[in-house]
């Protein structure tokens, strides 16, 4: 089993945005991995490892698209426990969502991977499209917005609990497939691989890299490819023509008592 995981770097979402010249100025930003990508690597590692044993059930490959000099987040995922990395060396600002998806699909094919696990959303651009697009390009089944994943090793299939508008949908997909992960995939018992005891409770959230992991990450192989190596033409048919701050809400007021709140809601706002 070969699992491909994508990592994208984003400007730290906890830093405030700097608007400049009709765009956003990220020149002084701290860069961090997209949180949903951290959930994706955690999911892949939970599928691949056997808690209480030494066996590995899958190889986990991390894929980053961007200049080689920006590989820090990919290295971080290697330190968490991924086996090796692939960088597609391209300027991410010159790639649209469609092209990024084509590059990922091409790597998936080149590697003959069985499973792509990707975050459901990038916290900066919020497109929410890449995993579904890759599944379409590969013509394989997809399970989007996964909150739970169970791997049926014998049947080569995954049973995925998907968070949808009305509740949780349970979808079974044969491999190869694409899974996009939602927040709750990193709760203690969200991922089951059939080998780690089903009762095992992980610590909530993506794991931190250990000191040993960080040392080992430096020695793990990372291949660097060009889009042309993958037969993908680089370009974009999306253009950002402006960015603005949303209108601010007008300042509110503090009320001192519940009675005052009730008074305001009934007489001033007239909402109840």
């Amino acid at each position, binding site marked *: 089993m070969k699992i491909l995981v994508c990592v994208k770097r984003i400007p730290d*979402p906890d830093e405030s*945005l700097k608007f400049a010249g009709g765009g*956003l100025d990220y020149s002084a930003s701290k860069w961090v991995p997209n949180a949903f990508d951290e959930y994706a690597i955690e999911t892949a590692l939970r599928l691949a490892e056997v808690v209480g044993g030494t066996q590995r059930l899958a190889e986990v490959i991390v894929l980053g698209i961007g200049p080689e000099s920006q590989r820090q987040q990919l290295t971080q995922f290697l330190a968490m426990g991924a086996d090796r990395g692939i960088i597609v060396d391209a300027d991410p600002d010159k790639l649209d969502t*469609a092209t990024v998806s084509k590059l990922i699909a091409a790597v998936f094919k080149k590697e003959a991977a069985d499973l792509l696990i990707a975050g*459901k*959303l990038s916290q900066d*651009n*919020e*497109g*929410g*499209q*890449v995993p*579904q*697009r890759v599944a*379409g*390009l590969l*013509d394989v*089944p*997809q399970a*989007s*917005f996964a909150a739970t994943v169970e791997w049926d090793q014998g049947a080569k299939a995954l049973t995925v609990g998907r*968070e*949808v*508008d*009305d*509740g*949780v*949908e*349970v*979808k*079974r*997909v*044969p491999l190869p497939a694409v899974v996009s992960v939602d*927040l*709750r995939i990193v709760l203690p018992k969200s991922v089951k691989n059939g080998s780690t005891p089903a009762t095992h409770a992980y610590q*909530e959230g993506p794991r931190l890299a250990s000191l040993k992991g960080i040392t080992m990450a430096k020695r793990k192989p990372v291949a660097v490819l060009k889009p042309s190596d993958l037969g993908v033409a680089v370009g974009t*048919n*999306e*253009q*950002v*023509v*402006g*960015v*603005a701050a*949303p209108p601010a*809400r007008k300042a*509110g*007021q*503090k*009320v*001192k*008592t*519940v*009675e005052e*709140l*009730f008074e305001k809601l*009934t007489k001033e*706002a007239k*909402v*109840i």
Partner: protein
Amino acid sequence: MSKVLVILETAGGQIRPHCLPGITCAAEIARATGKPLHLLVLGAQPDAAAQAIAAAGYGAAAVHTLAGPTLEPFTAEAWADAIIHAARTLGASVIGGTASSTLRDALPRAAAVLDAPLVSEVVKVKSGDTFVRPISAGRALQDQKVNAGTFFFTARGTEFEHAQPTGAVPVQAVAAAAANTRGAVVQGVQKTESSRPQLTEAKVIVSGGRGMREGANFKLLEQLTDLLGGALGASRAATDAGMVPADLQVGQTGKIVAPELYFAVAISGAIQHLAGMKGSKTIVAINKDAEAPIFQVADYGLVAKWEEAVPRLVELIKARKGA
């Protein structure tokens, strides 16, 4: 002439109400591009719903149906096949609808196969090829232009009015296509049963956060909710902790809501939560911490413990209703 095509979801022979803002967004694109508006209903037996939708018309030229046994229950795989087939057959060059979990799943897949861009979560149509969409948890609005003959869109439901009936239009069937699930099987949906209105449709929402401590304490918020005929919501911390079902989460990665009245009770106001409710008309925050960021967006802020504030508020509302 090429068309603007809206993909609709139906239940019980009717359009699902959350699809109506998507029609309005599409109608604006149709106006801006001079292309006619068409509607598409997919399903195992889409005819009854299509007839009901065609009777309302919603400003469209026609309602199309595409029937197939694999289109129910919904899978992104079969729906993408059907949407691609319909888009080709009908000559649609703009394809979209409301950004529901269904269309967010199926449309990017279809767009990829047609090698077309998709503009997600449109909040405003600037012109026939330029759209405003929120990024970075709603902290910025981006104007995105697409340069392509065919493109897809999803519309943010809170930002467009519900499309209104305009008068009957014809129903036309698109010849069936091979739509298949690629081996995927939907085993069921665990629905959160509730007699309350849908979060995305509710006029009043009462949301609770981590400070509620446990699910049982939400009973009190439910009392307030039901007195006001509203829907119950929650922060990620409350849903992660299992206090309430996950589909009640409001925020960047949950439901985007914009009710007349939003109560944030024991919610700190993280940007990801604000991203989902900042568009509410009146926001009330009840939090014991005077420094909680939620107070920066609240029209009315009460520094208090919910244990004291909520029961008193319930009493006052009950007394008023009784009067």
